[in-house]
C-alpha cells in the first residue's frame, strides 16, 4: 500500500468537474425555463384554477389528494378545459427564451475577457518587461506545462498582491500578472515561477472556458431571468393576496420565490466548491512541473485556532471562498487526500440541484402534454446521470484512494444520507408532494428519498471496491464509466418512480384496493371476474403491483434492474494475475504491489448460492401450487384464487432471492452486497423458470394443478406470466437482496470475523481451478439477464412512445386509482365551483340544449300546423341528431360540482339522449307514438334543465355571488 513516500496521483481517475458544472448549467436552464412559464402564463391571463374548481375541487380547503383525484376522475373534461382555458405558452416562447439566454451568455462570455483586459486596467507585458526576461520565463514555463504556445500575458501594475489570474478561454487564455508578483520576480523568483505555473496549470487542466462560461451563465440568469420572475411574484402578492383562492396559490408563489433565493445560494456555493478543488489540482500540477512547494509556505500565516463556535464560523465562511485555506493547500501538496474525499456540501448541493431540476422538467413535460414513458424516463435519466456523474466519480475516487493507501473507505451511508437530504429538500422546495399546500400530507415518505440515495451510494461504493480489487488494466476509467452508467440507469428508475407515484403518495394520494385488484385480475384473466371485498393479501398484492408497475412501465426498467447484478458479475470475468495491477503502478508508483482491496473469492462461491436460492424458489412454487390446488376446490371467488396465485408466485421468487442472498452473504463476506445481488438475480430467474414450467404443464401433476385443464405443454403461459410475475418480482428481489446484505450491528459482526477471513482465503485458492466452467455459467447468466431485459423492452416499447389518452387515464382513475376523501365545502367555495362549471362550458351546453330543443319543437309545431304526417317530417331529423350530439358533449364535460344539481344534470343528459334516439328511430320507422314519446321526454329534459339553472342560481346566491 502507498505510504508517505508514494503519493497517490490525483489524476488516477477523472475529477468529475465537467459533470458538476453541467449540473449547475442544467439547474439554471431548468429554473429559468420554469420562471418563464410562470410569467408567460400570468401574462396570457390563462385560468388553470377555474378548471380545477369546475372539476369540483376546492383548492382552498381540499387536501392535495382530493385536488388530484377530482381532476383525474374527470380527466377527459379537465384536459379539454385546460387546453381551452389554460393552454401553455407556445413552445416557440421557450425555444426563443433559451436562444436569448444562450445569446446573452455567449455575448457575456466573449465580452468578459475584453472587459478584464481593457486598457485602463491592465497593460501589455511589453510595457513593463523591457528586457524581455518575463516573456522568456513565460515561454519556458509554458513549454514545461505542455502548452503549444504561451498564453497572452498582461500586467495589472496597480494590484499589490503577489498573485496572478487567468481568464478568457482555454484555447485563448490571458494570464494577468499582478503588480506585486512582477515586483517579487527579482526578490523571490521561486514564488514567481510557482504562481505562473499554477496559472498555466489552470489552462492545461481546461478550467478556463468552463469557469467563465458558468460565470457568464450565472450573471445572465441573475440579470435576465430572475427580475421578471420577481416582478411576477410581487404582482401576485399585490393583486391576488385578497382573493378567495389565495390560500391555494400562496404556497406555490412563495415556494417559487424561495427556490429562486435557494438557487442563488446553491449555485454560488457549488461553483465555489468546484473552484476550490480546481485550485488544488493546479497547485499539484505546478509542483509536478517543478514549482517549489516552499512558495506555498510563505503565502500566509496558518489559520488561528479558536473554540468550536469560532471554528464552525470559519468553516462556514470558507464555504464562500474561491480558494481553499493556505494550510489545506500546503497539506494537499504532500497528500492530495482532499481531492479524493467525499464531502457533505457537494453531496447536498448535488441532491438539491437534481431534485429541483427534475421537478421543473417534469412540470414542463406535463404542461406541454408530452407525457409518454420515453419522455418521462429521459427526464429521469438526465437527472440521474447528473447525480451519478458527480457523486459516482467522487465515490470512485474515495474508493481508489482508500485502496491505494490502505485507509478505511469513507462511509457510503453518510454520503447517501447527505445526497438524499439534498434530493428530498430540492424536491419538496420545488413543490413535489405538496401541490397546493405548504407541507406534504405524508412528509415521512420523503425519508424514502433518503433511503434511495443511500442505496445508490452503497451499491456504487461496493461495486467500485469490487472492481478496484480485481481490475488489472492500465486505467480504471472504463470500468468506472460502466459502473457509474449502471448506477445512473438504476437511479433513473427511482426518479421515474418518485415522479409518477412517490410524489403523489407523499401528497396524500389514496386508491381503492379492490378496484385496482379487479382491474389487474381482469387484465390477467382476460375477462371480468367477481368483486369480493379487499383482503389483507389483496392489499399487499396491490401495493406490490402498483409499485412494480410504476417502475416497470418503462422499457428500460428491467435493463436497469438486471444491470444491478450483471455489473458486479462482470467483475469476476477478468483473469486474475500475480503482477501488481498496471493502474496501481501509474496511480501510486511507489505503492506496495499487493492487491488493492480484498480479492473476491472464486466465481463458484457466487453462482452456487444462486442455484440454491433458485432451488428454494422452485420448492416454494411447488408448495404454493399444492396449497392452491386444495384451495381451488373450495374457493368461491375466482378473483381471490387469481390473486392468491399471482401473489404466491411472486412470493416464491422472493423466497428464492432471499435464500440466495443469505447464502451469498455467508459465502462471500468481503463483497457481500454484489454477491447477494448476483445470487438473488440468478435465483429469481431460476425460480421463475420453475413457476413457468409448473404452469405451462398445468394438469400433468394432478396434485399441483390449479386451472383444471388436461395435461399438455402450454408455452404461451410463459409469455402471460412474464409481465405479471417476473417483471414486478425482479426489482423486489433486488430490494430483498439489499436488505439481506445490510451491515449487521457491530457485536454480531465481531463473531464472524474469523470465518470471513477463512472464506476469503479459501476463495482465492479455489479460483483458478474451475474457472472455465464457472465463467461459462456466468456468461450464460449475463446473457439470460440481458435477454429478459430485452424482452421487456420490446414488449413495452410500443406503449412507451404513445402519450396517455385522456379517456384512458380517466378510465384508470375510475378503476380505483383515485379516491376522493370527504372534506367539507363552504357555501362560498361551492358557489365558486358552480360558477366555474357554468363559465367554462356548462352554460354553453345548457344554452345549446335549449336552442336545439326550441328549434325542434318549433319545426314540429310548424309541420303539424301544415298537416304533415310522421312520414313527411324528415326535415326535423338533424335537430334530433343535434340533441344527441349535445348529450355526447355533455357526457364528456364536467359533472356539476354539487350533488343535487349533478343528479339533475345526469337526468338531463339521459333524457336528452333518449329523446334524441327515440326521435330518430321514430322517423326511421314512421312511428308517430314513439315520436310523441320522444318529444315528451325532451320536454321533461327541458324542465330538468330549468331545475339545474334554479339550483345553481340558489347555490351562487348562498355563496354571495
Amino acid at each position, binding site marked *: 500500500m502507498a505510504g508517505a513516500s508514494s503519493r497517490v496521483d490525483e489524476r488516477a481517475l477523472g475529477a468529475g468537474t465537467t459533470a458538476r458544472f453541467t449540473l449547475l448549467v442544467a439547474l439554471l436552464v431548468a429554473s429559468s425555463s420554469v420562471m418563464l412559464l410562470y410569467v408567460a402564463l400570468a401574462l396570457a391571463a390563462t385560468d388553470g384554477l377555474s378548471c380545477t374548481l369546475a372539476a369540483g375541487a376546492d383548492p382552498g380547503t381540499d387536501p392535495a389528494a382530493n385536488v388530484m383525484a377530482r381532476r383525474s376522475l374527470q380527466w377527459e373534461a379537465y384536459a379539454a378545459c385546460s387546453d381551452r382555458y389554460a393552454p401553455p405558452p407556445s413552445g416557440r416562447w421557450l425555444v426563443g427564451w433559451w436562444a436569448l439566454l444562450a445569446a446573452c451568455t455567449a455575448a457575456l462570455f466573449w465580452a468578459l475577457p475584453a472587459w478584464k483586459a481593457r486598457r485602463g486596467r491592465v*497593460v501589455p507585458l511589453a*510595457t513593463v518587461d523591457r528586457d524581455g526576461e518575463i516573456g522568456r520565463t513565460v515561454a519556458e514555463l509554458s513549454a514545461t506545462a505542455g502548452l503549444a504556445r504561451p498564453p497572452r500575458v498582461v500586467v495589472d501594475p496597480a*494590484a499589490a498582491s*503577489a498573485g496572478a*489570474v487567468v481568464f478568457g478561454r482555454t484555447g485563448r487564455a490571458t494570464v494577468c500578472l499582478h503588480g506585486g508578483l512582477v515586483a*517579487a520576480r527579482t526578490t523571490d523568483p521561486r514564488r514567481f515561477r510557482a504562481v505562473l505555473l499554477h496559472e498555466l496549470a489552470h489552462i492545461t487542466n481546461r478550467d478556463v472556458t468552463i469557469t*467563465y462560461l458558468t460565470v457568464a451563465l450565472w450573471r445572465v440568469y441573475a440579470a435576465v431571468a430572475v427580475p421578471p420572475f420577481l416582478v411576477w411574484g410581487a404582482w401576485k402578492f399585490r393583486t391576488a393576496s385578497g382573493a378567495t383562492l389565495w390560500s391555494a396559490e400562496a404556497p406555490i408563489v412563495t415556494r417559487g420565490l424561495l427556490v429562486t433565493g435557494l438557487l442563488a445560494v446553491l449555485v454560488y456555493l457549488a461553483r465555489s466548491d468546484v*473552484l476550490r478543488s*480546481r485550485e488544488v489540482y493546479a497547485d499539484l500540477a505546478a509542483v509536478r512541473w517543478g514549482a517549489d512547494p516552499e512558495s506555498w509556505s510563505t503565502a500566509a500565516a496558518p489559520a488561528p485556532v479558536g473554540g468550536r463556535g469560532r471554528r464552525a464560523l470559519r468553516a462556514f465562511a470558507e464555504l464562500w471562498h474561491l480558494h481553499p485555506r493556505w494550510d489545506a493547500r500546503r497539506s494537499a501538496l504532500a497528500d492530495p487526500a482532499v481531492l479524493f474525499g467525499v464531502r457533505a456540501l457537494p453531496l447536498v448541493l448535488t441532491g438539491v440541484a437534481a431534485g429541483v431540476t427534475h421537478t421543473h422538467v417534469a412540470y414542463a413535460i406535463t404542461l406541454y402534454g408530452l407525457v409518454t414513458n420515453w419522455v418521462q424516463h429521459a427526464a429521469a435519466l438526465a437527472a440521474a446521470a447528473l447525480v451519478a456523474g458527480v457523486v459516482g466519480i467522487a465515490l470512485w475516487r474515495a474508493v481508489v484512494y482508500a485502496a491505494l493507501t490502505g485507509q478505511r473507505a469513507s462511509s457510503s451511508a453518510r454520503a447517501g444520507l447527505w445526497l438524499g437530504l439534498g434530493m428530498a429538500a430540492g424536491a419538496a422546495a420545488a413543490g413535489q408532494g405538496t401541490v397546493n399546500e405548504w407541507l406534504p400530507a405524508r412528509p415521512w415518505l420523503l425519508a424514502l428519498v433518503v433511503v434511495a440515495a443511500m442505496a445508490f451510494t452503497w451499491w456504487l461504493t461496493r461495486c467500485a471496491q469490487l472492481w478496484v480489487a480485481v481490475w488489472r488494466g492500465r486505467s480504471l476509467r472504463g470500468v468506472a464509466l460502466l459502473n457509474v452508467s449502471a448506477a445512473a440507469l438504476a437511479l433513473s428508475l427511482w426518479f421515474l418512480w418518485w415522479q409518477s407515484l412517490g410524489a403523489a403518495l407523499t401528497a396524500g394520494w389514496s386508491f381503492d384496493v379492490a378496484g385496482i385488484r379487479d382491474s389487474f385480475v381482469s387484465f390477467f384473466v382476460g375477462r371480468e371476474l367477481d368483486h369480493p371485498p379487499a383482503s389483507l393479501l389483496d392489499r399487499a398484492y396491490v401495493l406490490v403491483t402498483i409499485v412494480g408497475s410504476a417502475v416497470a412501465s418503462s422499457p428500460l426498467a428491467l435493463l436497469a434492474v438486471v444491470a444491478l447484478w450483471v455489473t458486479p458479475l462482470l467483475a469476476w470475468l477478468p483473469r486474475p494475475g500475480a503482477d501488481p495491477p498496471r493502474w496501481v503502478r501509474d496511480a501510486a508508483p511507489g505503492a506496495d504491489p499487493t492487491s488493492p482491496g480484498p480479492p473476491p473469492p472464486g466465481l463458484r462461491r457466487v453462482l452456487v448460492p444462486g442455484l440454491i436460492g433458485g432451488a428454494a424458489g422452485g420448492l416454494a412454487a411447488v408448495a404454493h401450487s399444492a396449497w392452491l390446488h386444495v384451495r381451488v376446490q373450495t374457493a368461491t371467488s375466482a378473483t381471490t384464487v387469481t390473486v392468491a396465485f399471482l401473489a404466491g408466485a411472486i412470493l416464491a421468487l422472493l423466497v428464492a432471492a432471499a435464500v440466495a442472498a443469505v447464502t451469498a452473504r455467508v459465502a462471500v463476506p468481503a463483497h457481500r452486497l454484489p454477491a447477494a445481488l448476483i445470487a438473488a438475480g440468478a435465483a429469481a430467474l431460476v425460480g421463475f423458470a420453475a413457476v413457468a414450467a409448473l404452469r405451462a404443464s398445468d394438469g400433468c401433476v394432478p396434485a399441483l394443478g390449479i386451472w383444471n385443464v388436461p395435461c399438455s405443454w402450454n408455452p404461451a403461459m410463459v409469455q402471460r406470466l412474464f409481465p405479471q410475475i417476473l417483471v414486478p418480482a425482479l426489482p423486489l428481489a433486488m430490494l430483498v437482496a439489499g436488505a439481506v446484505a445490510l451491515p449487521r450491528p457491530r457485536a454480531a459482526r465481531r463473531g464472524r470475523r474469523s470465518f470471513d477471513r477463512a472464506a476469503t482465503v479459501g476463495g482465492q485458492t479455489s479460483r483458478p481451478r474451475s474457472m472455465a466452467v464457472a465463467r461459462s455459467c456466468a456468461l450464460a447468466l449475463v446473457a439470460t439477464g440481458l435477454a429478459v431485459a430485452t424482452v421487456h423492452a420490446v414488449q413495452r416499447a410500443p406503449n412507451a412512445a404513445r402519450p396517455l389518452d385522456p379517456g384512458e387515464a380517466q378510465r384508470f382513475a375510475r378503476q380505483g386509482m383515485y379516491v376522493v376523501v370527504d372534506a367539507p365545502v363552504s357555501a362560498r367555495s361551492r358557489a365558486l365551483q358552480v360558477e366555474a362549471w357554468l363559465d367554462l362550458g356548462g352554460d354553453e351546453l345548457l344554452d345549446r340544449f335549449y336552442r336545439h330543443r326550441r328549434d325542434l319543437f318549433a319545426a314540429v309545431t310548424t309541420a303539424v300546423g301544415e298537416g304533415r304526417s310522421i312520414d313527411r317530417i324528415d326535415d326535423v331529423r338533424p335537430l334530433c341528431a343535434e340533441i344527441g350530439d349535445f348529450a355526447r358533449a355533455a357526457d364528456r364535460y364536467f359533472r356539476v360540482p354539487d350533488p343535487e344539481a349533478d343528479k339533475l344534470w345526469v337526468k338531463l343528459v339521459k333524457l336528452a339522449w333518449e329523446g334524441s334516439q327515440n326521435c330518430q328511430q321514430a322517423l326511421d320507422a314512421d312511428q308517430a307514438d314513439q315520436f310523441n314519446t320522444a318529444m315528451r321526454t325532451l320536454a321533461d329534459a327541458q324542465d330538468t334543465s330549468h331545475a339545474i339553472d334554479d339550483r345553481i342560481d340558489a347555490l351562487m346566491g348562498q355563496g354571495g355571488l
Partner: protein
Amino acid sequence: MVAVRDVVRDVVAEVAPEELPLVDGLASYDDGTVVRRLSRTGPRREPLGFGWGEVIGLATPVVWLVLDQVAQRLADAAVDGTAKGARGLLRRLVRRRRPPATLPALTADQLAELRRDLLDLSIRRGLDAQIAAEVADAVVRRLDRGPDGSPGEPGPAS
C-alpha cells in the same frame, strides 16, 4: 515644479528598483487613473487566481499616493472650490486625461508633514518600518534636489 511621476520613478529606482516595471506600467495611465487604481486596497476575489489576500508591501503606491495628495492639496489652495468641483464633474463625464500632477518646492514644514504622511501610509500598506523610513528619506532627499534632480539649496528640513 517637479512632476509627481518623475519623483516616484527616481525614489523607486533608489529604494525599490524591483518595482520599476510597475512604475513603467503605471506611467501609461494619467495621474487620475493611477491614483484611483492604487487607492484600492481590498483583496480581489477572482476565480482561477492564485489566491486571495496575499497583498505584499510595495513602495510605489505609497510614494505615488502621498505625493499626489500633497500636489492636489497645494493646487487646491489656489483654485476656487466651486470651479474645481464643476471641472472634476466635467472631467468625469468626458473622461479627459488629468494633466500630470506637479509639486512646487516645499518648505521645511511641508516636507516634515510629507514625511509623516509617508510613514503613516507605509505602515498601513504593510511596509516594514525600516523600509518605510528609507522610502520617506529618499522622497525628502529627491524633493530637496529640485526639478532636474541636481542638488539644490539646503532645505529648511535638513
